[in-house]
């Protein structure tokens, strides 16, 4: 067991308990021991960090990322992906089941948990499939998967197109008490689409993915959730129309939550110009109008969480003709930078940003893993420390992730994670921070 850690005089931001002021915090035995305006040194040996000028918040939670192991280790492994997450300030990530084998039965889930306990440096919570092999035909044994430890069900990447099947899946999931996490896309309308359908797809001569393809699927999912009482979590929503649908559903009491990615909050379809495959992602990058609506959705609670949808790919999968290139952005290590650019432009408050990275996702995970996303005394000692003013330049070559596929190469950001602590142990720190040992 490592020494207790005293973090002194940082700007503590903990939306779950309403803290937003300067203070100090002591981490002991893997938990938050106390938190106060004044620092009191512990009686025993401890490590101390002077957090003057730094923001101290609960460790970020990523509801949606792809760690690719087992099966696609060229793209990422749990070893590299969790180190990338830690560097990005995430102490908990939920990994999607589109692996090989997919997480559609207890055995692959047990395998993944073994790899996690061996290779991971943070908490990884698996998500199970909705259907066997994500084929959309047969529902998995949800109860056995829940017992194996999954926190929800998703065929992510593959929407469940069969309405009847989704209806049944929601009814089962409701019994089991876990959410259905759905990638909403009507495959018929969106067939062949490469980027957002609009003036850029008109210019580039690429097949477009209309906004309505997402909205039709979201409407269906919301209606089924309402009919079954199931908990629905909408992955990576991207359009103004989707925000509107979720808003109305919440008003009438549908049990729905929604997430948005940092790239959908900051990048538009214009980033694809020049056939930039690094900006090719599903759902596609949309327009300023959609960004405004998504930010408003965060503001008024329509959108509960920010999740990265970290999707690492090899260089070969991206350096080819646009239509052949894989969809996906490697986002764990640029998430905070992108979000801070919104904070600095005053389009998103720091408090709200931290809320949607901590309390918001913790609420979606729910009772299965209580105490996440907060610095309340007794909570796990998961802490993220950031320097909101430090300027840095994105360099994919320096990523811990194997996925160097980011459109943000060379971007100048202001605001970076300087240290990440998981269960009282430092899992990431950069050269600027020093945890000074204080022996007694």
């Amino acid at each position, binding site marked *: 067991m490592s020494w207790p850690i005293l973090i002194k005089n940082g700007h503590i931001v903990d939306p779950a308990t309403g803290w937003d002021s300067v203070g100090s915090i002591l981490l002991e035995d893997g938990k938050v021991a106390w938190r106060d305006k004044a620092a009191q040194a512990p009686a025993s040996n401890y490590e101390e960090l002077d957090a003057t000028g730094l923001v101290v918040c609960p460790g970020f939670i990523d509801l949606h990322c792809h760690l690719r192991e087992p099966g696609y280790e060229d793209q990422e492994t749990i070893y590299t992906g969790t180190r990338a997450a830690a560097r990005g300030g995430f102490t908990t990530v939920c990994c999607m089941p589109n692996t090989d084998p997919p997480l559609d039965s207890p055995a692959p889930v047990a395998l993944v948990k073994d790899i996690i306990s061996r290779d991971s440096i943070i908490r990884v919570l698996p998500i199970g499939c909705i259907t066997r092999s994500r084929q959309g035909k047969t529902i998995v044994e949800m109860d056995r998967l829940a017992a194996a430890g999954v926190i929800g069900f998703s065929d992510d990447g593959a929407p469940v197109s069969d309405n009847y099947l989704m209806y049944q899946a929601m009814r089962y999931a409701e019994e089991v008490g876990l959410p259905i996490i759905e990638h909403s896309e009507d495959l018929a309308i969106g067939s062949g689409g490469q980027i957002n359908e*609009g*003036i850029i797809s008109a210019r*580039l*001569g*690429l097949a477009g993915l*209309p906004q309505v393809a997402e909205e039709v699927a979201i409407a269906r999912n919301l209606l089924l959730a309402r009919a079954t009482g199931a908990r629905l979590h909408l992955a990576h929503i991207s359009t103004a129309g989707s925000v509107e649908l979720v808003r109305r559903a919440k008003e009438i009491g549908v049990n729905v939550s929604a997430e948005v990615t940092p790239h959908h909050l900051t990048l538009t379809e214009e980033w694809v110009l020049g*056939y930039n495959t690094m900006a090719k992602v599903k759902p596609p990058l949309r327009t300023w109008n959609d960004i405004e609506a998504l930010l408003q959705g965060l503001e008024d609670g329509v959108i509960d969480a920010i999740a990265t949808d970290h999707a690492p790919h090899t260089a070969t999968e991206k350096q080819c*003709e646009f239509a052949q290139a894989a969809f996906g952005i490697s986002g764990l290590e640029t998430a905070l930078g992108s979000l801070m650019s919104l904070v600095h432009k005053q389009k998103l408050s720091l408090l709200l940003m931290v809320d949607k990275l901590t309390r918001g996702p913790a609420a979606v995970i729910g009772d299965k893993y209580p105490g996440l996303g907060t610095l309340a005394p007794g909570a796990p000692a998961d802490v993220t420390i950031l320097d909101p003013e430090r300027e840095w330049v994105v360099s994919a070559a320096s990523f811990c992730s194997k996925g160097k596929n980011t459109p943000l190469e060379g971007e100048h950001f202001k605001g970076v994670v300087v240290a990440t602590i998981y269960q009282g142990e430092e899992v990431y720190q950069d050269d600027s921070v020093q945890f000074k040992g204080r022996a007694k």
Partner: protein
Amino acid sequence: MTASRFEPADMRAMEGQLIDTRLWQHRHVLDLDDFSPEEVSTVFDTANVMQEILRRPVKKVPTLRDCTVATLFYEPSTRTRLSFETAAKRLGADTLSLVVTASSVAKGESLVDTVATLESVGVDIVVLRHSLAGASHLAASVTSRAKVINAGDGWHAHPTQALLDMYTLWRHCGKLAGIKVVIIGDIKHSRVARSNIWGLSLMGAYIVLCAPPTLLPEGLGISSLNFPSVAVESNLALALNDADVVMVLRVQWERHSQGLLPGPQEYIRHYRLDEDKLALARPNALVLHPGPVNEDVEITAKVARGPQSVISEQVTNGVAVRMALLYLLSRGVV
């Protein structure tokens, strides 16, 4: 002092006409969306010189004898490929011709590898036609020395076609600014339409697109820096009013099975260019078609072969324009 490398032999071969390449700024010819009007004029002036060579009994000059031109076609095309190969040979270049069937691509030989191989073998100019938009951008991004001409990439662009279309119009009308051009057909899936929209807008023409709504690209309603502003009129009779030029695109019947086209009879009724419809345009309005023509489908045989049609001139001009581009790419300083 002109920046082009001239030998005395060139001067004689071009009948003493100096081709001014100083305003030419392109290393590759991928799209017309970043051309300047001066570059387009340079192409026209150079094509005029090439026309003269094509009128001689010996239609050959040694100007590009130090150049190797490879046509790399992933889609079948007799007309464009022959046009480029003829152009290269008239200028004395060595030519290589690769027609890649779909199965080669499926075997895994990537476009990137193929282009790199051509460059290693010593090819100076790669003329690429591909079924996927952006393919020529990809090819250009991996060459260090060779230059790329886009001979058509999916729905996106066919810059040499647009240049020869505009050259044809320019030879007849003397200018492009202010003329009204109506483009009829499947605009959404047409690289010829896109490139003509960019090129003609650049030169100041007024463009009207005429097509059923399912065959128009999305997002045209808003004014945007990302696309030239064009008018849309789905009624052919209204669109043709005051038109100086009518450009007809080939209909692809597979679009019908995708639910994008009304049936053949309906399309013909609303969008086929026949003599009666043509009479609604200006007298002596020019009729263009990129070919191959489906006679009596998108255009009647009478109109296609009639006095206002410049379809066969387009083909002849195509060789001259492509000669001009090969010359400018190999002799330009960029």
